[in-house]
Structures are given as C-alpha cells and as structure tokens.
C-alpha cells in the first residue's frame, strides 16, 4: 500500500482535518469546503472563520490521537518527513491522508485542484488553480527596484529563489538581489547585503514600525537600512503561499511603485 499518497477512491468527504499551516483557511475555505473542516493546527489561522474550528495541535509533529478523535474522512498534511510518519500512523487507523507540497505558488494551484476534487468542490478548486496558473504565466514586469527579503537578523537570513516570496517579488516588479541562491532561505553576511546594495528591504511583519535591527550600527552599513527603506509585508497576504497570491502581488506592486518614485 502506498502511504501518504492521494486516496484513489474518495467521492466526497464530510469531515477533513487540516494539518498544514494554510490549507484549512486558504484552500479548504476558499474552495467552499469550510463547513467540512473538523480540525486544524494552531498555525491554520486564515481566514477568521477557520479559528472557529477546533485545533488539534501545532503543525510541527501532528498529534495523531487528537486528529483521530475528530473522526475525519480525510487528513490533509503538509509534505514533510515528520508528516510522512503521521500519514503512516493514520493509515493504520484507517484514515486516508493526502500530503501536499505547499512551498511554491505552483504547489498551491495543484493543491487547490486536488482538494477541490476530493471535497466535492471541483469547479472552485479548478478555478483557483487556473487563477494561480494565469498569475505565473503572465510575463513578469520589468524590475522597478532591487529588493532583499530579510527574514531574520541574527544571523542574517535572506530569501533565495527557492521561496514563493522570490516568486511574488518577481511578479510584482522587484528583483531579488539573492535570486542566485537556489535555497528558499539562507544565512549570509551583512557585508554581502551591503555589496549587493538593494534599494528596499522587504520584511515579513504585521507591524508598521521598522525592525529593531535597523537601529543597530552594523545594519546601518546597508544603504536601504540607513535610508529607512523598508516595506512591511503583513502575514495574512505574505506569510505563506496561498490562493491570495494575486492580491499579494498587487499589494507589493503598489508598494514597489511608491519606492521606485523616491
């Protein structure tokens, strides 16, 4: 028996537990399957309606017992090593699972189609898939400004081309100065950021205040930090790859255009 793969015969499901950081809100709710969701992780926080679903633990190592207690027809898992173990355990309990990659925008298109098919909302799933495909197929605009995503300051971590954030930036007209790094994120020296000299620093944060490190002297060696050129990206749009990607791209485009005029 193939474990953790997509169940082959599953006409429709009445109860699904989401053990992924986003599938509950962003996908299951977006395709109209919100009523069928009987469990979520504490990290599944979007949309607001998802918070009414009972949580079954966090997204790191699934609490198999708590998931089984919700009597789901299907468990949606993020594709990771730890979740493969959980999928095996759930399979032994006779609970089908589907593991979905959720790292890049194209994963979202595929996940929307698969979840639409198993939950009986095929049209809605296909429509989200098509919207993401269209976004990705659009020729990217000419770069307006050079950007760096700084996702952690000590050690300094930046986003490389493996991440959906790099995709969002490219689609919005931002050229990621660390696009040459194939990884999703990587530790670099502040010196490297200074040398690559981005125009704008992109920060994942719901706050509007510049990050605390911008007051530290070593960070002020970076021109964009000295000039206070930060764009704060709120978590609901930018915190994970999601069906709201077109809105995220439009919002980022707007901010980048404002920066380009400076």
């Amino acid at each position, binding site marked *: 028996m193939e474990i953790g793969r997509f169940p082959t015969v599953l006409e429709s499901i009445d109860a699904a537990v989401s053990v992924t950081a986003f599938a509950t809100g962003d996908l299951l709710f977006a395709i109209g399957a919100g009523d069928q969701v009987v469990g979520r992780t*504490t*990290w599944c926080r979007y949309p607001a309606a998802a918070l009414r679903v009972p949580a079954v633990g*966090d997204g*790191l190592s699934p609490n198999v017992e708590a998931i089984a207690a919700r009597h789901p027809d299907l468990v949606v898992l993020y594709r990771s090593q730890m979740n493969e173990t959980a999928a095996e355990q759930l399979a032994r309990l006779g609970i089908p699972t589907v593991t979905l990659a959720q790292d890049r925008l194209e994963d979202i298109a595929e996940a929307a189609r698969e979840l639409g098919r198993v939950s009986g909302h095929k049209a809605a799933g296909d429509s989200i898939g098509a919207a993401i495909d269209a976004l990705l197929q659009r020729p990217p605009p000419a770069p307006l400004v050079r950007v760096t995503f700084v996702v*952690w300051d*000590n*050690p*300094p*971590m930046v986003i490389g081309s493996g991440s959906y954030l790099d995709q969002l930036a490219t689609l919005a007209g931002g050229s990621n100065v*660390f696009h*040459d*790094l194939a990884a999703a994120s*990587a*530790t*670099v*020296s*502040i*010196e*490297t950021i*200074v*040398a*690559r000299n981005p125009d704008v620093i992109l920060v994942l944060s719901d706050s509007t205040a510049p990050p*605390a*490190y911008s*007051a*530290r*002297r*070593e960070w*002020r*060696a970076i021109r964009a930090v000295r000039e206070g050129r930060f764009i704060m990206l709120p978590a609901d749009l930018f915190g994970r790859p999601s069906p709201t990607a077109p809105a995220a791209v439009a919002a980022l485009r707007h901010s980048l255009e404002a920066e380009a005029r400076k």
Partner: protein
Amino acid sequence: MKRWLGLGALVALALVSAVALGPAHVALSDLPSSAIVRSLRVPRALLALLVGGSLGVAGASLQALVRNPLADPFLLGLSGGAGLGAVLAIALHVAGPWALPLAAFTGALGAMALVYRLGLVGGAQLDPRVLLLAGVAVGAFSGAITTAIVSLAEAADLRNAFLWLWGGLSGASWDTVLVMAVYIPVPLVVLYAAARPLDLLALGEEPATHLGADVEPLKRRVYIAASMLTAAAVAVSGVIGFVGLIVPHITRLVWGHRHRALLPAAFLGGGALLLFADTAARVSVAPRELPVGIVTALVGVPLFAVLLRRWGARG
C-alpha cells in the same frame, strides 16, 4: 620566546586575513577607505579576537578550577541560561536593538547564580564536582524550558532563536567591540591575578591549602570571573563551542601547566582560532555563511590532534 613570537605572528596573520578577506570583493588598495572594511570587517575581527580570547581564558581557568579536562565554559549551564533569556525576550516581544544580547546576558548570569548556589549545597565550600553536576543540571533544565516555549509558541520567530544560539559574530559592530573592550579586562585581571594559586590548586585542594593558597575565596573568584567572561561572550555572539575546550589544551601542550603563561597564551590562541574560523565561515561558502561553531570544531579538532601527537609524545 620563540613560541610567543610564533603566537603573536599567528594572531597578526589571523587579523590581517579577517580584514582582507570577505564575501564582498574589496581591492587591496581600497581596504583602508572601504566602508565595508571599516564598519563591518574590522569590528567583527576585533570582536572575534575578544570573544575567542575570553572563551580560551574562561576554559583554561574552569578546567583548573574543577580539575577536569572536559570542562568547557558552556558546560556550567551558561548556554542554557542564555538561550532561555533570549527566547523569553523574543516570546515576550521585548523591543529594542539590544534586547537579545541583554536578555541572554541576564539569563547566563541567572544560570551562573543558580549553579553557584547549588555548588554550595554541601556546606560553605564550593565543591567542583557538585559545581559540574549543577551546571549540567541547570543547563538541561533551562534547555527543556526553552524547547517547551519554542515548540508551544505560534510565532515562527522563536524557531529562529535557535539559530542565534548556534553562535555567530554577525552582531559585531564598533558598539559591541566597545562594550566588550570595557567589560572583559576586569574578569581577565582577576583570573590572571589568580594564576599562581591556580597552579597550586592543580595539586589538589589540600596540598594547595598547605602551600598557602586561600582555596575557598580563590574558587569563588575564579568561578565568577570565568562565568562573567562567558556570559559576555554568549551575549554578543551566542554559543561558540570548542574554543573554550580545545584552546586551553593546545596551549597547555605548548606552554605547560603554569597559568601565568597559560592564560595569556589561551587568550591569544582562542582569539586566533576564532578569527580564522570566522573568516572561513564568511568566505568558504560565500555568498552564504556557515555557523562559526561548526568551523571552530572543524579547525580546532584536527589542530588539537596534530599537537597531541607532537607534544603529547614528549610526555
């Protein structure tokens, strides 16, 4: 004298390569005027020297204090305390550019106080064996609390706190260098002043007492001064392993067991090792950077093995 000249040359070479090499290309003729060199490379090199030196001296002193060659500045619970402080600061959203180092420093001092108190459990005397056990226990306990906070918290930020704990010198600036340069001379002088009694302590507590060492105050002074050095190091650069363990052994192989020579040699040796390791961490996989603790182990352990064969054979 030849050994000291050699060590001095090694430190100078380490300093020059740390300033001349980096992931960004700076032409040799531009080195003095480059902003990257002045505001990033030079302070980072000086911080590496000060942190590596502090860890070397703290390790040498603690190994003498607990008379255990496995003693490491972080074995006495300080890394656990510092980590807990840092994670709490992130979890409670303590703001400010210096929040993390200050919280780590406070956590390390808290662990130090707790270990010290536990070390006195047997009476008024500080028992080195109890001190070691208390250090391991406090470290494990605060590590467990830290892990619990990180795994229960929803903020992804907290998982990154572990990255900081692995150690690194990316927080280096003239501010950090200044703080360290003002702070570390006091514990360093205290330890150097204890050099002769530490030699006696190596013979055992009873013989040391008979030879005129005031053993109890000595143990307390050494423990507190070494911990203060380690706490400052962990606050500015996280937990950088192996320097405090390996460097004292290397210097002991070359300079012998006299602390008057051993402690300065451990300072310079620790500084040189961390300088070379940090340069390698910055340059070897550029534009990415390695955690410096990995490099100190990769550089330090083979070096130790070579010296062990060369000097260890002489007995």
